[in-house]
């Protein structure tokens, strides 16, 4: 472990340096030192009582409010830095309970980092205890809308009747068949939406028993992407849409049970049009405290 070498209270603004904090963890000696987010500076650990912050120096030329705002408009810069942030947090997570910080939590000096740790000491320690021996897993639900529509036509009595009527009309009265088909399409879509919502609820319920906490995020939060967005997946001639985005906090010892539950769903229900995909373990981003006036 590398402790911070800069004396607290030194004036970093003079040399244009600030401190980027990646995560808070319990004080321990067995954490790996990785490269920080900028300029090859190694990650250091700034201790304060029983906890410490994983941090590294960053230049104010790139990370002060104004340049940062500009840099964040560059998707490539942003993506690279987000991935580095994540890699550093994961390196810590491999050895220790960890509270991942939101992207670009930056302080002017190691002293300011220590003050932050002191100010929130109790909540941070409680949060670390809460996530100890637990893992965050993501579960995404992909709806196969063609499959849902087929099931609706097969299983809904009203749609079955309409399908028969349509077959007769197509033979005898093509004009009527045209309008009937439109009505049938509308009703199929209504039923599809209903079936999809029902499966989404049932999937979340099915996982409740094997998780400590479950957060249901909009798919995907803040992205505002619908069917044509990058979270649609094409398989063969059909398209799947991301309709469920769960974050699950799972006891480490119970991860196999949790994954078995996901597998069971896919075996039993997956072919009805909602397939679940788990990913993890993630740092517990969805299960940490949110202080200050930037909570959103």
């Amino acid at each position, binding site marked *: 472990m590398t402790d911070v070498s800069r004396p607290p209270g030194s004036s970093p603004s003079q040399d244009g340096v600030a401190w980027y904090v990646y995560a808070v963890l319990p004080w321990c000696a067995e954490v790996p030192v990785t490269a920080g987010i900028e300029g090859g500076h190694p990650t250091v650990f700034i201790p304060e009582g029983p906890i410490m912050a994983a941090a590294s120096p960053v230049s104010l030329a790139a990370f002060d409010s104004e340049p940062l705002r500009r840099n964040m408009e560059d998707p490539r810069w942003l993506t690279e830095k987000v991935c*580095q942030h994540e890699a550093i947090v*994961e390196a810590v997570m491999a050895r220790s309970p960890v509270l*991942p910080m939101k992207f670009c939590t930056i302080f002017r000096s190691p002293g300011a980092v220590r003050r932050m740790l002191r100010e929130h000491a109790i909540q941070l320690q409680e949060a670390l205890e809460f996530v100890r021996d637990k893992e965050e897993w*993501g579960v995404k639900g992909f709806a196969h809308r063609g499959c849902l529509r087929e099931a609706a036509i097969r299983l809904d009595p009203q749609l079955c009747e309409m399908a028969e009527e349509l077959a007769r009309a197509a033979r005898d009265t093509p004009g009527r068949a045209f309008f009937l088909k439109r009505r049938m399409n509308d009703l199929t879509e209504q039923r599809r939406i209903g079936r999809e919502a029902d499966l989404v609820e049932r999937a979340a319920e099915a996982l409740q028993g094997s998780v400590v906490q479950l957060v249901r*995020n909009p798919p995907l939060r803040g992205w505002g992407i619908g069917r044509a967005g990058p979270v649609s997946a094409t398989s063969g001639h059909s398209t799947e849409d991301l309709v469920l985005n769960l974050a699950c906090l799972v006891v480490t010892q119970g991860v196999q049970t949790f*994954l078995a539950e996901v597998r069971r769903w896919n075996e039993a229900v997956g072919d009805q049009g909602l397939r679940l*995909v788990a*990913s993890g373990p993630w740092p517990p981003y*969805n299960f940490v405290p949110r202080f200050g006036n930037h909570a959103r």
Partner: protein
Amino acid sequence: MPAEIEPAVAERRITLLETLDRVLNKGVVITGDVTLSVADVDLIFVGLRLLLSSVETARDLRLSREACLSPHACPGTADRGDGRQA
């Protein structure tokens, strides 16, 4: 990013989108000395969405993500998911 959608229970490859969503939107929120307004954070999604709407670009980015999460750069990460399947 179709290649990431696999029928396996645990995705071996982490999706870039999930990483971005977590790191940018979640995590401990604490007021640091350098602050970004909510509007700044919202703004970045516009650029990212444009970027990610190109499948080719998204593929390149995934490669760069895999590179920055290589075992060399980050011990333990390469085993994500794999070790859990035993």
